[in-house]
């Protein structure tokens, strides 16, 4: 690991806090209907989606040892559980861990 961990943590914290800080600073003035706000909002969600999708499709670490098929099954089952539980985030999160463990244990 080439990058110093403490420096990386400080950079991450700073990069995170500035969005929160400027959010407070401009909260009384910014117009949530403005184009810049909408563009920024799109960037935030698309980047998060890109990250999560990349982790699920090209995972590193422990998740990288599972097959693509198992990950797809877990994703689809989690989405199914999310919708049948009226968009509750707890159930798919907990069940995804259980389903992934079981499938990886019995299918590989």
């Amino acid at each position, binding site marked *: 690991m080439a990058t110093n961990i403490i420096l990386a943590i400080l950079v991450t914290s700073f990069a995170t806090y500035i*969005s929160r800080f400027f*959010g407070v600073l*401009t909260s009384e003035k910014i117009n949530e209907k403005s184009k810049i706000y909408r563009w920024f909002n799109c*960037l935030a*969600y698309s*980047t*998060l989606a*890109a990250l999560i*999708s990349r982790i699920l499709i090209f995972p590193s670490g422990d998740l990288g040892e599972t097959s693509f098929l198992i990950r797809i099954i877990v994703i689809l089952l*989690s989405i199914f559980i999310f919708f049948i539980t009226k968009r509750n985030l707890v159930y798919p999160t907990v069940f995804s861990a259980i389903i992934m463990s079981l499938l990886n244990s019995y299918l590989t």
Partner: protein
Amino acid sequence: MINPKYFFKGLLCVRRLDSPAIALGASFVAIGALLKNLGFTIQESIFSTFLTYALPGSLIMAESMFVGASLLNIFLAVWLVNSRLYPMTVSLMPLLLHEKQPRWKYYLSCHFVAVSSWLIVKSNYENIEKENRIDFWIGIGTATWLIAIFSTILGYLASDFLNKDMMIGLAVVNPIYFMCAMIGVMKTNSLSSAIILGAILGPSFYLISPQWSVLFGGVLAGTIAFFIGERYGD
């Protein structure tokens, strides 16, 4: 100073069974285990959650370090990923602002803005008088922040005692939690496009450049989504 009555009222909001804080805790257990696997010490892992308290930011830092990304790359990627906190903060603070409350409370407590705490306060703030909402918010933020820190420690320590299948199960918790949270916000053309295009372009750019895939994929997807939103409306 902080009114203890409303602080503790906020603090106890996380007790509910369907609280997003449960998913938050499960996710940070996985982060603790992930950081352990990436070679972080327990102090560094605690330090990371203590200072950052934003799961995607911690995730992208860990993932970026894994592929040997530079500090500048980490800064830009984390800033872009966590820039969602900016509109979240902007849409939250006006609900909490009161002329009798000192400004430092807002600049300090904005550290607690995260998906889980934001969801909790958004569904509970109307029951609190405006003057006391900031103390209520600080209570919620403190509770979710502490859950994140203790879950990181738990995940870090538990990773030694968990078998491989359990570790794999925990590793999938983070992306599944945020995937479901994002599906839940797909209510407009621009956000739906941003999330779907981001999910397609992120891995696509990975084939060209693993280090910059999230940044390039995210910016391109978000910009296209913005124009789709402008063209077809929300």
